[in-house]
C-alpha cells in the first residue's frame, strides 16, 4: 500500500534541480540583482549567504536561463586540485581538451584570455568557492583581470570564509549579493508552492498557520533545514498512515508530528 505522504516527502529531497526551483519574492529579487550585476563591467561578483539560503540553486537557474544567450559555465563541484581546475578552465576557454601528458601554463592561459578581450565574454559561476585554495583564488583573480572572463563566486557566510573573501576579493572591483534565510511569508509560500507544484493540494492545505510558525521557528527560515524538516514530518506521517491511521489527522497536520520531527532532527530536546 502506498501512502500519499511517501510522494510528498520526496518533494523535499534537497536538490539544486532547476525543476525544484520555487519563485519567491526574495529569491526573485536576488536573481534580478545577479542578472543586473552580470551585465555590468565587473570582473568578479560575490554571492554569499549561510548554507541553505539558495545560492547553488540560484546559480544553477542563472546558468540554465542564460545558456543560450551568453557563454556561461557553472562549476558546481569545486576543484580542490589545481591541475584539475586549470584543465576545466582550459576546456572552457579554448573549447578543446588538454592534450594528454601536458600541463596548463598559467601565464600562457592569462595571455590567451587577454587576447579574447572584446571578442568573447565568458561567465564562470564558481559554487562553493570556499573550497578553493588561496593560491587558486589568486589565479582566478588574475584571469578575471584579463576582462575576458567574469566570475561569479559563491561563498558560505561563516567567519573563516568571510576572511577568505576579505583577503582575496574585497580589494577588487566587486558587487556583493547577500542571500538570507526566508522571512515567514517566503517560508510559508515555499512550503505551499513546493507541494502544490506536485499536486499535493490537500497536504498543503492541512498545514495551518500555527504549525507553519512552529516549522519556521525550528528552521529559522533556512531552505535546506525546511527541506529536512518537512521530509521527516512526511516520513512520520507516512508511517502512521500505513500502520496507525488513527494517530494522524488528514485535514490538520498535528503539532505533535512536527515536534517529533524536531526532536529527531535535534531542533528541540526532551
Amino acid at each position, binding site marked *: 500500500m502506498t501512502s500519499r505522504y511517501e510522494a510528498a516527502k520526496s518533494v523535499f529531497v534537497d536538490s539544486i534541480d532547476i525543476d525544484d526551483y520555487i519563485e519567491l519574492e526574495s529569491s526573485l529579487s536576488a536573481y534580478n540583482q545577479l542578472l543586473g550585476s552580470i551585465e555590468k563591467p565587473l570582473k568578479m561578483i560575490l554571492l554569499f549567504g549561510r548554507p541553505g539560503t539558495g545560492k547553488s540553486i540560484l546559480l544553477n537557474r542563472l546558468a540554465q536561463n542564460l545558456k543560450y544567450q551568453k557563454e556561461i559555465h557553472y562549476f558546481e563541484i569545486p576543484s580542490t586540485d589545481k591541475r584539475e581546475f586549470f584543465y576545466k578552465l582550459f576546456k572552457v576557454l579554448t573549447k578543446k581538451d588538454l592534450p594528454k601528458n601536458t600541463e596548463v601554463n598559467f601565464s600562457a592561459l592569462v595571455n590567451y584570455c587577454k587576447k579574447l578581450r572584446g571578442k568573447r565574454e565568458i561567465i564562470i559561476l564558481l559554487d562553493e568557492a570556499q573550497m578553493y585554495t588561496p593560491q587558486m583564488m589568486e589565479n582566478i583573480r588574475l584571469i578575471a583581470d584579463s576582462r575576458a572572463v567574469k566570475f561569479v563566486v559563491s561563498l558560505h557566510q561563516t567567519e573563516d570564509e568571510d576572511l577568505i573573501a576579505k583577503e582575496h576579493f574585497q580589494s577588487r572591483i566587486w558587487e556583493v549579493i547577500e542571500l538570507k534565510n526566508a522571512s515567514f511569508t517566503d517560508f510559508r509560500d515555499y512550503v505551499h508552492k513546493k507541494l502544490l507544484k506536485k499536486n499535493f493540494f490537500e497536504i498543503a492545505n492541512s498545514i495551518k498557520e500555527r504549525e507553519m510558525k512552529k516549522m519556521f521557528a525550528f528552521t529559522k527560515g533556512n531552505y535546506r533545514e525546511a527541506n529536512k524538516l518537512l521530509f521527516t514530518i512526511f*516520513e*512520520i506521517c*507516512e*508511517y502512521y498512515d500505513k500502520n496507525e491511521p488513527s494517530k494522524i489527522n488528514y485535514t490538520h497536520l498535528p503539532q*505533535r508530528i512536527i*515536534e*517529533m520531527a524536531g*526532536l*529527531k532532527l535535534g531542533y528541540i530536546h*526532551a
Partner: protein
Amino acid sequence: MHDIKVLEEEWIRYHRKKRVPLYIGLFLLILLTCLLLSALYNNPFLKDDAGKETPNIEQVTTTTVSKKDITKKGISNNDSQQLEDDIPTEAVVENIPVLEEEQSKLKEDTANKRKKLALNIIESSGLDAYKDVEERFFKSKDIDDSLFLAQSYYQKGMYKKAEYWALQTNKINTEIDESWIIFAKSKMKQGHKNEAIDILKEYIKRTGSEKAKQTLLSITAKQ
C-alpha cells in the same frame, strides 16, 4: 521509519517538560493569590474596623436617650439624682470605652488591649474593673479613660473620686465641657457650691460653652 516508538516516548518526555513552566506559573499564581487574600483578611487595620461592634453603639444610644427622657420629663433634682444613682453601673460601663475608641490616638496594640479591658468591665462590673481602667490611664494618659472614670464615679455618688478624675481629664485637655461640668458638680456635691460656680464661670468665660451655662444656671437656681 523504525524508531517511531522511541520518538513517541521522547515526544511525551518533551511535552511533559514543556508544560513544567506552565505548572510552575500556575502554582505561583495560586500561591500569590492565596498570600494576597490572606494578607487582606489578616490586616489588623481592616479587622479593627470590622470589629467595631454595632450592638455597643446601640447600647450607648439607648442610654443617652433614656437620660434625655428623664431630663425632658422635668423630674426634680432630687429625683434626677436618685435616678442617676439608680442607673445600673453595667449599662454605663458597657458603653463608653467602645464608643469613644474612634477618637483614640493610641497605637493599635493599646486599642486592642483597652477593648479587652472594656469587655472585662462588662462581665465584672466591680471596683476591680475601675482599677484596671485607672492603671491603664496611668500608662496611656487616655482622656477617654479618665472621663469615663469621672462619669462613673459621679454616677455612683463617689464625688471625691469623680472630682479627681475630672481634674485629670482637664489637665490633659482643658476644653471638654463634660469634664468641667462633672468637676464643678462634684465640687458642689461636696458642699463647695461657690467654688463650683467660680469654676463654671471661669470655663464659660474662656470657652463660652452652652452646656456649662445651663449647668451654672441650674446650680444658681437652687440657691
